[in-house]
């Protein structure tokens, strides 16, 4: 599910692979001197156990609205130029990107601050759930992760 055109923020929640470079292109801005792109990927191991894959489930319209609010608030609070957020749903293999946040700002301090604020808010608040699937079972992961 996609946002329409927007002045400043763009959000996508869906099963398609995330194009990190495309996300960075979306935040290009003539007034920006700094861009920060964060990507969260599936690790091969967690808590000492070998991960087979992850499954993400989203309440898409709610997650979409929440991500848009997070992006707008992070840009406004830190004076960033533009932000784009993508979160994938469905089954993800080791190394695949689950979440990506791109932000542009006039200077680097603002870009880092807005990026960090957005990923923390996303992990703590947005209606997305993650299940870790191991070779010998699975579990829903609650809490913000790290």
């Amino acid at each position, binding site marked *: 599910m996609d946002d329409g055109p927007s002045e400043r923020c763009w959000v996508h929640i869906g099963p398609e692979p995330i194009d990190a470079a495309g996300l960075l292109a979306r935040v290009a801005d003539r007034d920006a001197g700094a861009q920060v792109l964060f990507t*969260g990927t599936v690790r091969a191991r967690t808590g000492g156990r070998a991960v087979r894959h992850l499954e*993400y*489930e*989203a*309440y898409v*319209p*709610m*997650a979409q*609205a*929440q991500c848009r609010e997070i992006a707008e608030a992070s840009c406004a609070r830190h004076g960033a130029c533009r932000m784009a957020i993508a*979160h994938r749903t469905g089954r993800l293999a080791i190394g695949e990107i*689950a*979440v990506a946040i791109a932000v542009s700002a006039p200077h680097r301090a603002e870009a880092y601050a807005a990026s960090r604020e957005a*990923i923390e808010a*996303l*992990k*703590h*608040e*947005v*209606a*997305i*759930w*993650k*299940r870790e699937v191991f070779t010998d079972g699975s579990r*829903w*992961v*609650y*809490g*913000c*992760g790290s």
Partner: protein
Amino acid sequence: MRLEVLLFAEARERAGTDRLAIELPDEPAPTAGAVLETLARQPELAELVPRCRLAVAHRLAAGSDPVQPGDELALIPPVGGG
């Protein structure tokens, strides 16, 4: 009144369905809190609901927020995206 609640993740799995229909009295006017109490009486959700919140029209609701037929209601287990 009859209300429908969307279920996600562990709630969906425990209930074995992605939506539940529940009945609430028309009076007093039903609230988000009353919906959660009703859901908590479903045996398969009893343990999980105390850790959940209710979303009304895609926003987390306070317990005293009113709900009405036609509202999109969803049971939100603890989140863990990213």
